[in-house]
């Protein structure tokens, strides 16, 4: 957990680590996507605040796949290169709902204590 004397970079790192799974699962909730798209979307939608290094993006994907929360498969569409697409499984959907709830509660608490508003 975050220690009282933690500096800001370390805080960012911890936050990122804690939120990675949520971000990926949320992006896959909309539709199936490939790794590049996931990384790119996170970066774009966070307006550059959050970006994932490939070396942590893919291992996270594999870990989620291992846990059965997402499912990846190689897909070849006509006119496109072969790519590996990931989609959310039923179990993933449940976990996403649960995580959303946890973050929701957490942000409310943050707002109350530290006056951080969230959109």
């Amino acid at each position, binding site marked *: 957990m975050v220690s009282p004397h933690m500096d800001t970079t370390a805080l960012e790192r911890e936050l990122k680590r804690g939120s990675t799974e949520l971000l990926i699962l949320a992006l896959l909730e909309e539709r199936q996507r*490939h790794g590049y798209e996931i990384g790119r979307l996170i970066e774009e939608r966070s307006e550059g605040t959050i970006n994932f*290094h*490939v*070396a*942590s993006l*893919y291992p996270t994907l594999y870990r989620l796949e291992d846990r059965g929360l997402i499912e*990846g498969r190689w897909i070849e569409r006509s006119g496109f*290169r072969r*790519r590996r697409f990931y989609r959310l499984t039923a179990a993933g959907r449940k976990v996403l709902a649960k995580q959303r709830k946890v973050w929701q509660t957490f942000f409310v608490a943050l707002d109350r204590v530290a006056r951080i508003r969230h959109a």
Partner: protein
Amino acid sequence: MVNWKARIRDAAAVSGHILDDDIVEELASHAVTAYETARAEGSDKKEAEKFVVAMVQSWINEAPRLRRRPRHPQTSLPAREDSPKVWFWPWLEHLRQDVIYGCRVLRGNPAFALTAVLTLALGIGANTAIFSIVNAVLLEPLPYQNPQRLVMVWESNRELAKNRDPVAPLNFQDWKGETSVFEATAAYRYSGFVLTGAGDPERIRTLSTTASLFETLGVGAAIGRTFTEDEERKQDRVVVLSYDFWQRRFGGDRSLIGRSLNMGTNTYVVVGVMPPQFRFPDDAPAVETYSPLFLDQSDLRSRQAHTLTVVARLKDGVSSEKATAHMNQVARRITDAHTESNPEVALFGIHDVFVENARLALLVTFATAAFLLLIASTNVANLKLAQGSARGREIAVRASLGASRWRIMRQLVTESLLLSAIGGAAGLLVARWTIGAFVGLSPNLFGIQQVALDLPALSFTLVVSLMTGVLFGVFPAWQVSRANLSETIKTTGPTARRRVARSALVMAEVTLSIVLMVSAGLMIRSLIKLRAMDYGFLPENLFTMQLFVSPPKYPADPVQFRPRSTDAPPAQLSAQARLFNDLVDRLKAIPGVQGAAAVSALPLNPVGIDFDLPVLVEGRPRPPAGEVPQADFRIATSDYFATMGMRILQGRGFTDTDTMNTPNVVVINDTMARRFFGNENPVGRRIVFYGIPREVVGVIASVRHRGFRLEPNPEMIVPSKQFQQFGGMTLVLRSSLDSMSLERAIKRELRQIDPGLPLSNARTMVSFLSDSVAQPRLTTLLLASFALLGIVLSCVGLYGVMSYGVTQRTQEIGIRMALGAERRYVFRMLLMETLMLVTIGVVCGLGAALVATRLMRGLLFGVGPSDPATYAVSALALILTALAAAYRPMLHATRVDPLKALRHE
């Protein structure tokens, strides 16, 4: 378009990572998308590529996190880790990298590579060559059907210490009925015929055998047929030719079958030719014809006529032990009825009998070759250690980049295996030359016909090369990989340890070399003793040729087989006897010839009449049957003893006055004198053989007729003018003329008497002598070459260690000298260290040699396996050689300039 997949894989490999195919593909897909996006967003090709390359590199830096990509999310992880795909491909990839890297290392250091490959080639080559010979001689099955069921059967008599008595024909006839243990039995003995007719007359080597031989061996004729038991019983004169003889003498003429050959006094009908690979028995020179065994009255008179060799095929399910037990019962039953018969039998596997002469020599040579390989391996290990020190930085860098010790060791061992593989390939060449030289030196030795680098030999080389690679690779790899970054920088730790390791290797080399030297030394001493051995005659300047005569042109009057009454009219010499006596008289007259004689059986080449006879001493009670002592019998012309340089110890030799009209005389050897007469003076006594009493007129020093290993038999010689039947004689000339002119002169003289007679086998006595020690000479030569190679390799190793040690210690030596140590002192210090190293090796080696050389006992002659002189000389020679090898580096050390030395680091 960039091949991102390959790019990513290579980039990972370069930094020592292996990524799963799946993840590489996914990353490549990511890279391509990133590239396309960059292009779509306005970057030009170059920019886009640069951007993606940087991205890829950043991934690779984090590669450890990317590894072990699960493929099927549902399967549990451990199960997949066992799958060959996960483990085998990376392993192979690592191997490929290691091999490529190893090649680069070898190319980068050609002096090291060349030395190591040459050393290994010698070691592996010697082993492959000896293995090929061992394989051909000792391991290859004999060319008979189920040869492992074939046994040789001898009579034996433990009480009389006879363990391999040839079989009496009467006993063989009784044995033939023993079908409960043997499927088939056959008996044979050697005989010789002079073949006349088309071409030069020629003496041929014949095996007189029962017809059952072919059935027993399970081999039939290649052309025509073998002879039958019916022909044997009816004493039909038929003959089967060996393939080689048929080719050599008759050019493979198929129409020969059914034709007659003039053999001796009779004609024999050729009925068949044996297959090319057939050879029986397995000795040299090979038998050329096979004819039926005819037993005559003298064969069947007593169970003491031990004339036959018996070969038998064991019945299925009957072991050699069981057969021996059964045959022992049979032998005892026979002894109960005929007391003179031997009470036991001895059975030996046919293969053991055929190879027994070669086995020990070959195994000792093989062991020696193995020692040589050990030395070679040790040497290469030493080189690798030295190289490892030089590569310390490289290895430290690899280790600091995360390569595990295991990974570094694997790399180093792979390099060793690469070296040994190249060494093995070069070793095959060495083996080819060695085998060529070996077969050239000993065409008939050990029964070698065709030793080849065949599949077993190649497999052997492969296995030995790999084993060698591991042997010399693991120890240095373990040592070198112990180094870590900080230690390499701080230097002293691993260097000191490695010096100890290298010293240990040198001691091991010295130990191995001493064993080799002692073995070779013992063989050399044996050979010298053999060379200097007194054979009972003076072999130098003796030239010999053989002459065979036969009736009807040269009849042999059988008169000597009847006791001649003293008042009978003077007898005439037979035509045979006259021929030889006349010829020798002519030969004596050749200018430049100091002496000429003829003898029925020459020492070391007993062709002609060479057999033992029962002998009685007149005036003594006749011993019971079975105890009549026997002596070898020969006929010689009057100047034989003088020509050969034999020593007359008592009485006289023959004179021209010993004729048919004077009393019958005989000369015996001192072995016979001792055995028959003990302390009595034999001269003047009379002995009886062939029913004729003869007076002993002289005693000669015993001659080693049967080579150096066998003690002389009792021997008696009668003058040629008192004997009628010869068949063949060997002519002996003492002359310093060259062989060619002597041969021409003899032929010229013979032509004057009879141009149709066959002279053959022109040889010098020295060459017979040389042949008789061919096997020990060859073994000695091999052992000595191996020992010499071993010493050279050890010295190279020692030199390397010393040079290296001195270089490493330049600083230490410099400090010592700066602190006032004199050069003399430094030299002495290094000398003592070297001496210590070598002495420990020598002491260990002498101990090991004491144990190892016991196996050689059977090869040694006139010297024991623990001969102190050989050990002392070997030790001293090795210490001196080692010091000589270490001298230069030691001298170099004393010339160290203290100032430079202190700046060394």
